[in-house]
C-alpha cells in the first residue's frame, strides 16, 4: 500500500511527515540506548526479509494482489521502534531507488506502515500477552492477530488520509481499503507466524530479545 505522489494534499503530507519525523527521532533514541551487538544483525536481516518479501505479490480475489508487510514481525521480535527504523529505511530505498511510493508521500508511508503498523500491532501483541499469558501458544496466536491488525490499521490510516485529502469519500474508501486488507492480513498473519516458528526452531534466543531487553 505504498502511496504514490498525487493522491494526498499538502496538509495531509505535512501532518504525516511531522509525526513520522518525531517517531523516527524517538526510534533513534530508543534503539541507540537499548540495542547492542545481538540486535544489530537481526535488524539487517529483518530489513532484507521485509524488502524481499514485499516484492512477492500474491493474488487475492478480484484481480487484486497483496504482499507481506512485516511491521508486526519486526515489532514482535525487536519492539515497535525497531519497526520504525526498518520501515523508514526500507521505504526510503523503495522510494528513491525502486520508484515505489512517492517522494512527497514518504512521510505518509512511514506513518502508515512503520508507525501505525508497528506501534499499533505491538500494542495489540502486548495487550494479548497480558490477557492470555506468555505461553508459546499465546505468543504465536497474538503474533498472528497483531500481524492481521498491522495491515488493517495501516490500510485504515491510508483510507483516512485519502478522505482527508478529499480524494474519495470516507465511507467508501474506508470500506474498500479495510475489506481488501482484511484478506491480505490473513496471509500476513500466516507468514509472520511461519517466520516466528522458523526463528524459534533455529535460534530461540532471538525471540526473547524484545522481552528481556527492549520494552518501550
Amino acid at each position, binding site marked *: *500500500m505504498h*502511496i*504514490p*505522489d*498525487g*493522491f494526498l494534499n499538502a496538509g495531509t503530507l505535512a501532518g504525516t511527515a511531522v509525526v513520522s519525523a518525531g517517531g523516527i527521532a524517538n526510534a*533513534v533514541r530508543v*534503539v*541507540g*540506548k537499548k*540495542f*547492542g551487538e545481538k*540486535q*544489530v*544483525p537481526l*535488524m*539487517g*536481516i529483518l*530489513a*532484507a*526479509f*521485509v*524488502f*524481499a*518479501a514485499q*516484492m*512477492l*505479490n*500474491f*493474488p487475492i480475489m*478480484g*484481480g*487484486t*494482489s*497483496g*504482499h507481506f508487510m512485516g511491521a508486526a514481525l519486526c515489532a514482535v521480535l525487536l519492539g515497535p521502534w525497531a519497526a520504525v*527504523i*526498518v520501515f523508514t*529505511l*526500507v521505504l526510503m*530505498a*523503495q522510494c*528513491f*531507488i*525502486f*520508484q*515505489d511510493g512517492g517522494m512527497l508521500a514518504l512521510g505518509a508511508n512511514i506513518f502508515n506502515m512503520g508507525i501505525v503498523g508497528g506501534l499499533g500491532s505491538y500494542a495489540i501483541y502486548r495487550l494479548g500477552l497480558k490477557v492470555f499469558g506468555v505461553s508459546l501458544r499465546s505468543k504465536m496466536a497474538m503474533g498472528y492477530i497483531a500481524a492481521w491488525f498491522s495491515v488493517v490499521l495501516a*490500510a485504515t490510516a491510508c483510507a483516512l488520509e*485519502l478522505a482527508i485529502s478529499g*480524494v*474519495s469519500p470516507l465511507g*467508501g*474508501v474506508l470500506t*474498500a*481499503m479495510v475489506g*481488501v*486488507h482484511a484478506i*491480505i492480513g490473513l496471509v500476513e498473519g500466516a507468514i509472520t507466524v511461519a517466520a516466528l516458528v522458523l526463528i524459534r526452531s*533455529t*535460534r530461540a534466543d532471538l525471540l526473547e530479545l524484545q522481552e528481556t531487553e527492549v520494552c518501550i
Partner: protein
Amino acid sequence: MKNKKWWLCAFVFCLMLATLSPLASSSPDGLESVAEEKGFVDMSASSPFSVIADYMFPGIHNEALATILAGWIGTTLLFALVFGVTWLITRVRKSKLSPG
C-alpha cells in the same frame, strides 16, 4: 546453530526469496485496485527520475532476470544499510554516554 552461520543462512534465505520475485502476481495491489474502483488512480504522479523503477534492473531484456537482479540488489542494500545505520546509532549513543 552458531551465531555467524545463522546470520549467513538467514541472509541467503532472503536472497532466495528475492529470486522468486519473477513469480509474483502483477495484479494491482490493495491500494491500487481501490484507487481504480473509486476512480482516483489517474491522480498518481510518476517519479521525475528512475533508478531501478518497477523493480526491473534497466537495460536487461529478460524481464525475469531484471527482476531477480533488482531483488538481489535491494535485499543486499537493505541488509547493509539497516545493519550500518543501527550499528552507527548504537555506537554514537554509547560514545556520548561515556566520552573517551
